[in-house]
């Protein structure tokens, strides 16, 4: 039986959905390893502690709240030192992070400080003895490797959206935590957070994604994808590398081998041919719909449902149909 330490990711004073996923995964890890406690580290500016409730609601036995102006922005050096110190104590068998930009920046630092290995971006895991046995996509997600790590502690990160948050209400227990080092002494300083459009759902959080490619012919036609996303209500708009390279959409919208990996319930690919670069980023989506003029386009080989037609014609009709379906 070993305790699990989870790092809960927040941004601009709010918990991110991946934090709840991480707590759920931590809970699973605790159960599989003999039923230890799940402690969650929540760091941020003054007031972040008020968000601890959601963590307890998903299985946190204790929330370690680190409130300090020095953590208003992401402070990797101070966080890494603090987490390493907390993990070193011996009270924890496992340290768990989200497989996000922050999580995958932070977890290797902690691992190197402790001199232990790290298994990253797991889509699933079990526990054998003290070891984590986890599935990790390799080779652009074309191969799944089963990795084994036994460390003291064992460190891992979990892929966003791989562990759906499960309600598991516990009494809220918080404990103040202080930084192991002076947060103002960090050499790496985040001086500005540039939020994307906060009205929009992030690609990793969206159950539905409408993605567009070159077949949309012009940047302005992405409004058709946005209309369809609005009709769904819980959708995000993504793009292929071709159109982000051309500047039609921001780089952070790129889904593919060198961009974002997404796994929504429904992925609608409009005007996308299905180059391998792109497929690598979305092939694990539950249901894939493709709309393309060319019936021989590779995207149709991976799609569950396909419409052969001009996306510019089909999208508005689909938007109207989705709106009607939602209304009824």
């Amino acid at each position, binding site marked *: 039986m070993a305790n699990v330490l989870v790092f809960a990711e927040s*941004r601009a004073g709010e918990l991110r959905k991946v934090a709840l996923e991480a707590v759920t995964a931590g809970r699973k890890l605790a159960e599989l390893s003999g039923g230890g406690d799940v402690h969650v580290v929540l760091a941020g500016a003054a007031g972040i502690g008020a968000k601890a409730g959601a963590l307890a609601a998903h299985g946190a036995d204790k929330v370690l709240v680190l409130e300090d102006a020095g953590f208003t922005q992401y402070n990797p050096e101070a966080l890494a030192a603090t987490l390493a110190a907390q993990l070193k104590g011996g009270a924890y068998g496992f340290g768990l992070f989200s497989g996000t930009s922050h999580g995958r920046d932070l977890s290797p630092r902690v691992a190197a400080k402790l001199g232990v290995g790290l298994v990253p971006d797991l889509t699933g895991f079990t526990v054998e003895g003290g070891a984590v046995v986890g599935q990790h996509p390799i*080779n652009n997600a074309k191969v799944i490797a089963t990795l084994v790590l036994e460390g003291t502690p064992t460190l891992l990160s979990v892929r966003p959206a791989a562990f759906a948050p499960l309600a598991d209400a516990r009494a809220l227990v918080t404990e103040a935590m202080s930084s192991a080092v002076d947060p103002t002494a960090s050499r790496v300083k985040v001086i500005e957070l540039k939020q994307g459009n906060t009205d929009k759902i992030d690609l990793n959080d969206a159950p539905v994604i409408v993605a567009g490619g070159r077949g949309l012919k012009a940047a302005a036609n992405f409004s058709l994808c946005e209309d369809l996303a609005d009709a769904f209500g819980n959708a995000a708009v993504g793009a292929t590398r071709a159109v982000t390279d051309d500047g039609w959409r921001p780089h952070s919208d790129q889904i593919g081998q060198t961009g974002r990996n997404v796994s929504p319930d429904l992925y609608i690919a409009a005007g996308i041919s299905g180059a391998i670069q792109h497929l690598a980023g979305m092939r694990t989506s539950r249901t894939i719909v493709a709309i393309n003029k060319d019936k021989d386009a590779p995207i149709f080989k991976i799609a569950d449902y396909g419409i052969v037609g001009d996306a510019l014609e*089909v999208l508005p009709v689909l938007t109207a149909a989705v709106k009607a379906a939602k209304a009824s």
Partner: protein
Amino acid sequence: MKIAVCIKRVPVMEVKFAITADGSRYEETGLKYDINDFDLWAIEAALQLKEKAGAGSVHVVCLGPNAAQEQIRKAMAMGADSGVLLESDVRTYDGLTVARALAAELKDGGYDLILFGRVAVDSMNQMTGPMVAELLDLPVVTNVFKLDINGATGRAERVLEGASEVVEFPLPAVLTIDDGLNKERLPSLKGIMAAKKKPLDVKPTSLGAPQVTVRSMALPAERSAGRIVGEGADAVPELVRLLQTEAKVL
């Protein structure tokens, strides 16, 4: 400006992989290899910084099998000045053992910057850069897609999900380079010829015992065949019906 770039030899990914009969790894027969995509952007970033500074040098370090000399030569054909191959046939998924070997090589190099690609497309570990930085006690900024170096300080913008953050850091530092910072140059023929004469040191290297091991590998579950529902806007009602009744996503 003295810059080191750590690169990796990876299989070219545009193939259907097969798993060996004993399920322990993927088949390597017939695979072609190249420099990891993200490492190409790191090399390009280093070359551009050297060109902008008007002086300096770019050194390539690679942990890999003997054949990885070809990848180091390609980096030198792009413009890197010298290369070191830490020769090891071991294909490991333990990022810390890799980081330790690289850190030992880089430690006394006096580099102003050590660049990595954000992630290797084969192992997809995305940890070597920050681990090396920790081992060398250097500041590290990951996922950089905008970069400005001004003397002894730097400013970078790093990728977040649906957002980004601007970061300041002192030199010397470690950076991991993401897609979007630049587009790598093609080696010119003169560059390829010149690379033959540039120094490439081969150092046999043994890695420490790994803490992360591979138990098995498998191909992801095949998606069941899909179907074309129809043509043009006329197919929409049927698609919506299927999404509601069959896929149950609407």
